[in-house]
C-alpha cells in the first residue's frame, strides 16, 4: 500500500487482526488406554450390581430392593432396641428369622434376577456383548458375581446391624468376643445362602426373556418347594406316646376342688412328643432353603430351624447343595454358550 495514501475516516485495520479458524471436528481416532478383559468384566459386574438395586432406572425400579432390604433389617433394629432396654439378644445369627428371610429372599430374587438377565434376552442385545473383547462365559460370570453380591448385602448387612446393636451394649471384651464368635458362622451361612439362591435365581431367569414368566418361575419354584418341605416335615414327624406315672406331692389338691377335699392319688399321664423320623430328616432336601438349613446343622449349627435335625444324613444335604449349585451353574453356562449371534 502506497505511503501517500491518506486515511479517511476510520483507520484501516492492521493486517492479520481479523482471523478465523475452522476447527476440525471430524472423526477422531482413539489413542488412549484400552482396558483388558478383566476390567471389562468388572465394569459389567458393577453395571449389573446397579441394576440389581434398580439404580439408574428410575424410582419404580428401586421399590422392591429398598423395601426388602428395610424389612430384612427390621428384626435387627427391634433387637437393638430390646437390648438397650436390658434384654438379651433374641435373634440368632445363624438362622436370623428364618421365615422372614425366606419370604424376603424369594421376593427379592424373583423381582430382580429377571432385571439382570431376562431384559438382555428379550431385547436380543447379547450379540453386541459377544462381538466385543469378552469371552462367552464372562457375561454370565459377571452377572452371577453381581447378583451374589446383591443377595449377600441383603443377608449380611442385617446380621452386622444385629451384631453392632448387641455389642453397643456390651461391657466387656469377652462379651464382644462371644458375640463375634457367634456372628462368624452366621455370616458363613449367609454366604451359602447368597451363593446358592443367586445361582438358582439367575439360572431360572435365564430361561425366559419375558420378565413376568421369569419372576413367576422363580417365585413358584421357591415357594412351592418351601411349602412342600414344610408339609413333609410336619407330616413325617412321629408322635411318641409315653406313659408317665405321676405322684402328686402330699397336700396337693386337684384344681377346682373345694378346700379340704382329699388329694388325687397316683395316676398315669400320657406324654406326647414329636420325634422326627428318617423321612422327616430327609424332607428338607426338597427345598433349597431347608437344604441350606440342613447343611448348617451338619456343619454344627445349634439354633433351631425348620429342619428337625439331620440325623446322620448331613452329608446328603451337603451333596444336595452342591448338586443344586452345579445344576444352576451348568444351566447358566449352557444358556449363554447357546445364545447365538443371530
Amino acid at each position, binding site marked *: 500500500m502506497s505511503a501517500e495514501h491518506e486515511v479517511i475516516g476510520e483507520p484501516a485495520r492492521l*493486517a*492479520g487482526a*481479523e*482471523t*478465523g*479458524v*475452522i476447527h*476440525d471436528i*471430524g*472423526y*477422531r*481416532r*482413539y489413542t*488412549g*488406554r*484400552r*482396558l*483388558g*478383559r478383566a*476390567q*471389562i468384566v468388572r*465394569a*459389567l459386574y458393577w*453395571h449389573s450390581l446397579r441394576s440389581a438395586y434398580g439404580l*439408574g*432406572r428410575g424410582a419404580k425400579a428401586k421399590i422392591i430392593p429398598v423395601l426388602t432390604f428395610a424389612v430384612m433389617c427390621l428384626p435387627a433394629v427391634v433387637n437393638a432396641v430390646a437390648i438397650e432396654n436390658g434384654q438379651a439378644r433374641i435373634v440368632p445369627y445363624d438362622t436370623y428369622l428364618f421365615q422372614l428371610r425366606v419370604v424376603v429372599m424369594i421376593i427379592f430374587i424373583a423381582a430382580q434376577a429377571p432385571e439382570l438377565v431376562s*431384559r*438382555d434376552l428379550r*431385547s*436380543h*442385545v447379547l*450379540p*453386541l*456383548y*459377544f*462381538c*466385543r*473383547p*469378552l*469371552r*462367552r462365559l464372562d457375561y454370565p460370570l459377571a452377572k452371577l458375581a453381581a447378583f451374589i453380591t446383591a443377595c449377600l448385602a441383603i443377608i449380611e448387612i442385617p446380621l452386622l446391624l444385629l451384631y453392632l446393636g448387641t455389642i453397643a451394649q456390651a461391657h466387656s471384651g469377652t462379651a464382644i468376643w462371644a458375640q463375634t464368635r457367634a456372628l462368624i458362622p452366621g455370616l458363613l451361612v449367609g454366604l451359602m445362602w447368597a451363593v446358592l439362591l443367586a445361582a438358582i435365581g439367575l439360572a431360572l431367569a435365564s430361561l425366559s426373556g419375558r420378565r413376568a414368566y421369569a419372576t413367576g418361575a422363580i417365585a413358584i419354584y421357591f415357594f412351592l418347594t418351601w411349602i412342600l418341605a414344610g408339609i413333609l416335615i410336619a407330616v413325617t414327624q412321629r408322635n411318641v406316646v409315653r406313659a408317665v406315672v405321676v405322684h402328686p406331692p402330699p397336700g396337693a389338691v386337684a384344681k377346682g376342688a373345694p378346700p379340704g377335699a382329699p388329694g388325687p392319688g397316683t395316676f398315669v399321664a400320657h406324654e406326647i412328643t414329636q420325634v422326627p423320623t428318617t423321612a422327616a430328616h430327609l424332607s428338607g432336601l426338597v427345598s433349597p432353603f431347608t437344604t441350606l438349613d440342613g447343611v448348617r446343622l451338619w456343619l454344627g449349627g445349634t439354633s433351631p430351624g425348620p429342619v428337625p435335625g439331620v440325623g446322620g444324613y448331613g452329608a446328603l444335604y451337603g451333596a444336595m447343595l452342591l448338586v443344586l449349585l452345579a445344576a444352576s451353574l451348568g444351566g447358566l453356562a449352557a444358556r449363554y454358550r447357546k445364545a447365538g*449371534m*443371530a
Partner: protein
Amino acid sequence: MSGQSSSLAAPPQREPGPPEAAVIETIALTKRYPGPVTALDGLTVTVEPGITGLVGANGAGKSTLIKILLGLLAPTSGQARVLGGDCVRDGERIRGLTGYMPEHDCLPPDVTATEFVTHLGRMSGLPPTAAKERAAESLRHVGLYEERYRQIGTYSTGMKQRVKLAQALVGDPRLLLLDEPTVGLDPAGRTSMLELIARVGAEFGISILVASHLLGEIERICDQLVAIDAGRLLRADTITSMTQASEVLLIEVDEGADQLLAELGRRGLEPRPYQRAVLVRLDGDETYDAVRDAVADLGLPLNRLEQRRRRVEELFRDDQPEVSGVR
C-alpha cells in the same frame, strides 16, 4: 496476507493408513454343521481396505462367516485372518478392533441412546471418561442430536439403525461389519444411511464390510464386491471392473424412435431397438458425432445418451441378457 492461524483453511487431511495389507483373508474356509449343512465350502477370498460389499451369502453362509471372522466360531477346516490376526487364535484382539452392526433388532427399549452406547463403550474396553466422550462423538457422527437423551423405545427405525452404527463405532474399530444396514428403512432413510456409511468409509479411515442383498446400494457405495454362492466364492472384484463400460451406446428419444432407427441405419451404424431405446455399437468417436447429427437432423427430443455398462446384477443372472432391467 499472513495471519497467525490458517484462516479458512480446509480441514487437515486424514493421515494415510498403514500400507495396504488385506483387511480380511480366508483360505479354503469350510464350515459344516450336523445336518448335514455346509455353510461355507472352501471359501478363499481377500478383502482389501475400503468399502466392500458382501453379497449372495444367504442365511447360514453369511452369519457363519461373520461369526468365524469375529473369532466366535471355529471353522471345520481352512483359515481366516482379520486385520493380520488369526481368527481362531487372536479372536479377542480382533473383536477389540472390529465393530459389528447386526441385522436384527438388538436395542433395549427402556434405556437412552447415550447410556446404551456409553455402556457398550465400556464393554469395548474404554475407560469411563473415554467411553462417555466417544459415545457422545459417535452419536453426533451418526446424526443423533437431542434424541439421544430419549429412550430408544421411542425411536423410529432409522434412528435405531443409527444407534446400532454408533455402538459399532464407539470403540474406534479398524473394521466395521455391517449386516444389512438399510433393512426396514424407507427410501429417504436408506439414502441417508448409505451416505453415512460412505462417509465413514471415506473420511474416517475405517474399512467396512457391508453384507447386503441389494446390488443397487452396493454399486453405489462400495469399492469392491465379494459374491458368495452356496458357500463358495462366486466372484471377488472391484466394482469398477464389474461395471465396465461396454462398447455399446444407448440412445433414448422421447418420440420418433423408429425414425431414429431408420436414420442411424442409413448412416451405417447397425442400430437395434432395446425397450424404449436404441443401441448402436461404439466404433470410435465418430459414432457419437453420427448419433448427434442424426438426432439433430430429425429434431428429435434426446432424453438419454449413455455408454452401456455392465451391472453387478449380471453376475446372478443365469441367462445373459445384453443389459438388465432398464424399462
